[in-house]
């Protein structure tokens, strides 16, 4: 089996190579050990080969079809949320989860300008 190329024409019946798995780990922001990469490559290849059976089916993709609920354009009324709403969150409660915070500030790392690993 040739190395997996990232092109649609080649996807059929190919699994996930180790380099592909490593790439997916990067996309998903998860470091993986060498052992994990090898193990997941083999396990996920099995799964991908299984789900590939859908390729044999000739199914029309209906444009504009509603999702599983049949609901559409569900919007909230343009009113302030009620005090008792479960979705109201006090800042202190929200802040409590952050690893780093002080006073009324929460601390996060800079997106730009910090060291970024390839």
């Amino acid at each position, binding site marked *: 089996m040739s190395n997996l190329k*990232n092109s*649609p024409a080649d*996807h*059929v019946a190919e699994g*996930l190579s180790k380099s*592909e*798995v490593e790439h*997916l*780990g990067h*996309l*998903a*922001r*998860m*470091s*993986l050990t060498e052992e*994990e990469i090898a193990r*997941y490559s083999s*396990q*996920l290849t*099995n*799964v*991908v080969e*299984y*789900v*590939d*059976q*859908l*390729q044999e*089916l000739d*199914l*029309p*993709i209906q444009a504009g079809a509603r*999702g*599983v*609920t049949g*609901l559409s354009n*569900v*919007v909230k*009324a343009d009113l302030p949320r009620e005090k008792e*709403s*479960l*979705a*109201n*969150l*006090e800042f202190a*409660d*929200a802040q*409590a*989860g*952050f*690893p*780093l915070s002080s006073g009324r500030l929460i601390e*996060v*790392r*800079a*997106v730009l300008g*910090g*060291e*970024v*690993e390839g």
Partner: protein
Amino acid sequence: MNTLELTSQDLQSQIQALQTGQITSVELTKAYLDQIKKLNPRYNIFVRVEEEFALQNAQASDQRRKSGQTLSQLDGIPYNLKDVYATKGLPTSACSHILEGWIPPYDATVYHKLNQTGAVLLGKTNTDEFTMGVSTESSYYGVTKNPWDPTRVPGGSSGGPAASIAARLSAFSIATDTGGSIRQPAAFCNVTGLRPTYGRVSRFGELAMASSLDQTGPIAVSAMDTALILSQIAGLDELDATSSPSQVENWAESMQAVVKQAKAGDKSLKGVKVGLAKEYFGEGVDPRAEKLVRAAIETLKSQGAELVELSLPLIPKALAAYYIICPAEVSSNMARYDGVRYGYSVERQAAANQKHSLYDIYAKSREQGFGAEVKRRIMLGTHVLSAGYFDAYYKKAEALRQAVSAQFSEAFQQVDVLAAPVSPAFAFVIGSKIDDPLAMYMEDILTVPLNIGGIPGISLPCGTIQESNSHLPVGLQIMADKFREDRIFKVSAAFQTVTDWHLQQPNLSLTKDE
């Protein structure tokens, strides 16, 4: 009847006992707490017990009852939650290392509703990590042992909830079913588990796994119990844009009529058409399990139901669609666990002078915080959603989903319910499938079709198989059209009136592991 005997009874009996003053909520709650202390070390069912909290609430319930201010039928009834619901001030972790120590700052709608009924939360029960699994083996807190045979799995992902009812450690449990996670463990543990129509119960505050597939449902001793609970937890929620405005009915009341008829020996299911889709039977299903399921279906016939053979050719393909759609949504939903806002973070472990880059905070926190199954699904989802693969996988799976939905709708023009096995077999030995994720996924082959279709289904105990020295339960699956839980309940009420599989309990032993 002493208190311990009462905890072995179904929810209805306990409601009655409270109402007639035979027992107080504090007595009932204490009885459950004692049983949990005795059995949990062996079976690992509860991951967190909130003893003081429960007793306080039980006491408050008894006070309300004294002053004639009972909130509902469920007032004072002890229950548990699968460890995936936000409960303000009480830890929830989705049985994952990445949420260890997290204290939810808000309440899930389901939890809030149950608080308003006066029900008493005993604690949180074990699940596969982020509800991903069919065996509860991927839980950060270790596997739950099946009360029917502790060398075997209780099923998953709601292994803790199902086992909690099998071992009679709560009057009911609230769990989730995304691909079979209520029905399959209910079948493995000989309890009744309902997965309502998608949209019936609010998902606000339920830690999302796959947002178009997740649904909360009750697990209890009987279908009547689950109907009582559903009436309390269902309903439109403005905080969940996928929740349905469909009417919440008093299903239990309608079931009483059916029960009466069945008890009187009348054909309580006369006029009901039960569909048997051939794709759910035969090859791939353990013959002993199928035998029990077919016998159960004959029981329905003896109650006057008409059996209709039909074919749903896309059913066997639903699993493939599920293992594209589900991981895709998982990869999106797991992105929030980033080590920045809550939960496990390498920042917490870091020495004062050691500063991680943002990338490292993400990558290392997630590497260390997530278990293998979660990682696999995130990667699978990332793969099927990535450029170049989206059309081939995700779009195709969605097209299949529409087609499966259409097939179910068509079928329900001809029949009222579908009957089928829940599982291709029965509870397997702990560790026997852990190295083969695909084999694990295949366990769901008979349950996921309904998740893909968004329709409701229940698992009803229908007998046990003898395997080595154990009796292993088998479940009958009854499915209906969207928002037609009434039809499921009707069939279930009849079945559980003329059979007593659901009342059988395992022999629990307290001795340590063999």
